[in-house]
């Protein structure tokens, strides 16, 4: 019995040894396979593509913002036309000197001006107060300044990309976050300008009442806000395209990987 048990023990020992060796070999092969998998990085966008595409957006946004700041400062915010003693007059007002240069009190009256000497404050008929002409352009101005800053930062980011290795992950994160900020700024500017356009509409509807104040044949054009609205719409659309771009690139990569195309794919290896 003794030699048999010894044999069995020896056999077990040998088996264990062999198993261990096999395990080691397998571990090594497994590690190699894993390493090879790690080396094959996912097919994200190449850095060259990023560098090619994004400065265009930065430049476009900077140009738009500069043009917008120019329109805020140097284009008239309101043209108002009325008949004064049977003579048609057209006044144009810039946002800085809106309060000081208004000659006709009637114009201030239709905007709901608040005077201390009056028995009752006049009603706001067009949904715009003189303060709106002062503060809203300022807010819009700051919004465009932020846009310029973002555009400059993005261009600097691209320059850094060329000299230092910045991961695509951080690239995508940066451009998507900046895209969202741009969208929100665009919406804010659009809504700030919307009330100027709304004033036009309300002036048309309340025209018979306004004529009672002595402003005959009154007409208004908010010139700068309409241009700024167009700019804001371009910014929103541009930001959306910017965010979309990476996804489209990924889709293209994905489609190129799939060999199917027009054909259907037959799968090999089914146990039939």
């Amino acid at each position, binding site marked *: 019995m003794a030699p048999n048990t010894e044999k069995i023990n020896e056999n077990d020992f040998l088996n264990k040894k062999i198993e261990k*060796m096999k395990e080691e070999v397998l571990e*090594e092969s497994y590690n190699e396979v894993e390493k090879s998998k790690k080396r094959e990085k996912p097919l*994200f966008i190449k850095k060259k593509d990023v560098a090619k595409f994004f400065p265009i957006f930065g430049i476009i946004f900077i140009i738009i913002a500069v043009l917008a700041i120019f329109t805020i400062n140097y284009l008239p915010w309101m043209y108002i036309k009325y008949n004064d003693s049977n003579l048609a007059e057209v006044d144009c007002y810039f946002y800085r000197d809106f309060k000081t240069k208004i000659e006709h009190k009637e114009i201030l009256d239709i905007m709901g001006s608040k005077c201390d000497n009056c028995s009752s404050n006049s009603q706001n008929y067009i949904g715009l107060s003189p303060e709106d002409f002062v503060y809203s352009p300022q807010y819009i101005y700051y919004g465009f300044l932020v846009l310029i800053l973002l555009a400059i930062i993005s261009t600097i980011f691209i320059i850094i990309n060329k000299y230092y290795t910045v991961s695509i992950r951080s690239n995508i994160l940066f451009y998507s976050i900046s895209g969202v900020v741009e969208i929100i700024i665009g919406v804010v500017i659009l809504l700030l300008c919307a009330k100027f356009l709304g004033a036009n509409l309300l002036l048309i509807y309340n025209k018979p009442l306004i004529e009672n104040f002595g402003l005959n044949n009154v007409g208004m054009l908010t010139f700068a806000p309409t241009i700024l609205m167009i700019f804001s719409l371009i910014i929103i659309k541009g930001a959306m395209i910017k965010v979309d771009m990476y996804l489209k690139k990924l889709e293209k990569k994905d489609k190129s990987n799939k060999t199917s195309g027009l054909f259907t794919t037959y*799968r*090999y*290896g*089914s*146990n039939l």
Partner: protein
Amino acid sequence: MNYEINKRLKKFCSWLLILSVINLFIISLTPWISVENDSKEEVYYNFLTMQDSENIQINNLANYLFYIIILLWIIIIISSIFYISFSVYYISEGYSKFTRIMINTGYVTITINILITSLIINLIRKITEMDGISLASIYLNINFVYIPLIIGFLSLIISIAYTYYIVFNVLKQKELLKNGKKQTYEALSINNSKKIVKKELFPENIISDFNADIKHLKSSDWLKSEQVQKIGLELKSEPDISENKNFIKEEKSLENGQDEDIRFKKSEEKIILDPFLSEKIKEKTKKSGDVQISQQFEQALSSAIEKNQGKMRSQIPSETMFENQHEKIKKITPQTEIQNEAQENLSNNEKKELKKKLHIRCPQCKFIFQFEQSENFTNIKCPKCGKEGVIKYPNEIIKYPPQF
């Protein structure tokens, strides 16, 4: 989540964003109410004039609009964040968390849209109930108020569609994972690739008969041995899988009992029923591309070994074989040599296998036919229905993140 789903969700999100912006724009643009003056003239009010008004009733109505504007801003922020997060999704790792957040935000947008529409309806009802105040109308007596109401309804529908689409896809994928979990997902996932590699190099049958063949432990000898050569010959011809299946079935039932047998049967049925896996599982298989070959290779190995099993078992190890065991183990050739030779052998076998006849099922008419193939991608045509296609080998590895 694949690109098509992502694209559609992104469309929904962008539409939500656009509609809420339009709604905000219209709220601040259009006149909402018309009030009769003392001189019985109608004065039109928009949101800003309503806020400035000294009339308390009109101020209350303006408060309604203020709440609507706040809710619309919340939707804008949520949708704009989600608009970008679809691209961020591809670089993020917490897929399950992302889907949960998406579902929850879907519910949030639905509730906000319901609130907005209900607030607008309440506003209309209140205005119509008031004396001297009426809804401002455009030409042909169409009220301005109905434009934001219609847009609100549209955004509500889109938010419902958005959440339904997410939930539907998540449930669908869960089912797919449940169905194909045992046979495909688990077996072919990267986590289990360790086991697969082990099986590729040392199938179970070889390991069991390793002791019997201990004399040929030197890698060069072992690889030139009868076992391996037989395996090579077996691979040249078409592998008889039906026999192998029976053999594996018997072996499994003997080793692991009835439960294993039942499990194996079920998995086998699934394979036969649905050899063309769903998209999700296909992607998984693509990831671990050479797994399919390894399975077949294993089956071929098992069949070859089974034929020679009688002979192998008859070879009882002699007493002298276990003498000076430590020395013998030391004499074994280095591990890298074994590994390289085994891998070479495997690759050669794979090449041989690719040249053999394949059984292919047409995805359209389900007709099974044989096909001889040597290259990786060639166009094939179904002899029955004439459906054209491309044969796809599992060698192709496609890299993109796993689906939720």
